[in-house]
């Protein structure tokens, strides 16, 4: 194969070398179960405490407010089900948005079957919620608001601080899915005033299968995984020490150079958007022009379909995505692109390029070179394009 360039950092990231190095001893040397009182166990316990401190620091949280999980989806499920079931005596109404990740959306749908009532807020053409809509949606029996920090498909960043403020005023628990924002935005849980916040290691150059839920001190929610006394009895299961250690290291690295990272991402992102939009006609940028993740490009190409675009890009070694990687098992058009008002056809022709720390300007050049002829070839095959171009062909 030719050159291989990866532009799918929002789906997952490769682990940084430093992260792997830090993890290695815990696989078969310092491998003890941290619940054991012997020296092997104590080594694990120490490593666990250090990793927890590191993650806490990046969120300006207290160590005892960080609970490790088996990933971002588990953190979302735990936060939402845990808060909902714990507050059921107070009410049964939950507010979320139409553009949440499926880990939130399907959890809310499940809760509807279990007797909860859920309001799914609309978003505008940029993917932003309207604060007045939110205010109007709040009822006497509203117990939980869950609104994502930044969207995984179109990169739009919500006004989390304002939402948290409103929720606090109304005495409603507020959860935010910050899986995509983490590592790409300065997040200060105390300044924001959120109650629950989910993050995931594999989106920030850490290992897969590890995440964390920030739970504001004093907040009670039901556990999702009952059992042993791990995580202060709130999340059972032998701790994934190598994974957690890797998460700690990845968090530390991400925050050490946040500003440089953001600048680099924005530069590449902006060039991609500008060049693609200028060279290829019949395109549309999805998401907000400025309130967006530093590494997110999402563009619709009329008259073509996303999968054939992805396959063609893959043939020249470019790894990209069409909407959320998590939903690509399904054939339905992305719920996010539908929510911002795209037609079915246009939603299908969308391309997500997400840049990351290992991308170079040469990678960007490569995409800018390869993309236009691919789009053209597919359009030439498309009966829809034919109609637009009229006798042109």
């Amino acid at each position, binding site marked *: 194969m030719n050159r291989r360039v990866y532009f799918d950092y929002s789906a997952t990231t490769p682990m940084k070398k430093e992260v792997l190095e830090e993890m290695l001893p815990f696989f078969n040397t310092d491998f003890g179960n941290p619940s054991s009182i012997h020296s092997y166990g104590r080594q694990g316990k120490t490593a666990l405490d250090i990793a927890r401190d590191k993650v806490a620091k990046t969120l300006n949280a207290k160590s005892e407010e960080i609970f490790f999980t088996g990933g971002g989806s588990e953190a979302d499920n735990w936060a939402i089900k845990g808060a909902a079931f714990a507050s059921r005596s107070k009410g049964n109404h939950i507010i979320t948005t139409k553009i949440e990740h499926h880990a939130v959306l399907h959890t809310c749908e499940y809760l509807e079957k279990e007797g909860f009532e859920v309001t799914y807020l609309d978003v505008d053409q940029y993917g932003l919620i309207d604060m007045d809509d939110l205010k109007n949606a709040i009822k006497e029996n509203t117990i939980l608001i869950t609104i994502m920090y930044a969207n995984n498909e179109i990169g739009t960043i919500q006004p989390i601080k304002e939402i948290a403020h409103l929720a606090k005023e109304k005495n409603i628990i507020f959860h935010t899915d910050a899986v995509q924002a983490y590592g790409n935005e300065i997040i200060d849980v105390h300044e924001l005033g959120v109650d629950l916040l989910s993050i995931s290691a594999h989106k920030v150059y850490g290992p897969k299968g590890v995440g964390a839920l920030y739970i504001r001190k004093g907040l009670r929610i039901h556990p999702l995984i009952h059992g042993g006394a791990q995580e202060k009895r709130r999340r059972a299961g032998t701790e994934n020490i190598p994974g957690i250690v890797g998460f700690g290291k990845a968090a530390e690295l991400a925050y050490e150079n946040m500003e440089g990272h953001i600048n680099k991402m924005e530069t590449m992102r902006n060039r991609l958007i500008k060049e693609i939009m200028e060279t290829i006609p019949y395109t549309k940028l999805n998401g907000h022009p400025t309130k967006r993740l530093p590494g997110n490009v999402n563009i619709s190409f009329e*008259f*073509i*379909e996303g*999968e054939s675009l992805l396959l063609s890009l893959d043939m020249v070694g470019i790894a990209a995505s069409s909407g959320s990687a998590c939903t690509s098992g399904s*054939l339905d058009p992305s719920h996010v692109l539908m929510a911002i008002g795209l037609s*079915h056809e246009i939603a299908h*022709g969308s391309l997500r390029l997400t840049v990351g720390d290992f991308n170079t300007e040469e990678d960007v050049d490569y995409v800018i070179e390869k993309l236009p002829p691919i789009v053209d070839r597919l359009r030439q095959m498309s009966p829809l394009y034919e109609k637009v171009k009229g006798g042109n062909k």
Partner: protein
Amino acid sequence: MYSEKVMDHFMNPRNVGEIEKAQAVGEVGNAKCGDIMKMYLQIENDVIVDVKFKTFGCGSAIATSSMATEMIKGKTVKEALQLTNKAVAEALDGLPPVKMHCSVLAEQAVKAAIYNYAKENNVHYEELEGFVPDEDHDHHDHEEEE
């Protein structure tokens, strides 16, 4: 996920394009999954002497269109009507289960073109009995178990 044959027909599709004075044109599709397939047939003495297609759709939709055109080229109309989506999929060394419906579209596009031809030329093909040209060919019920 796709066989080499699928990728070959996707990257190098046979018979892409239009036939300006085609005797038969058929378009089927389903805007929901984003697929539209258009077939152009040139028919002489009941034989399909040329065929072209245009497709807006996934890799599998493009590959099955391409394969279907190859399979009916040079065949009589009656023979072309025997074409099944299974045969197209098999000729491509198979398709992933969730993508089988794309091959249905190819079969339907050929049938739709011949249907129009039959209507205009007042011929009757018993193979087309029960065929509804503008049915919404949405076969996206291959959802995996819960």
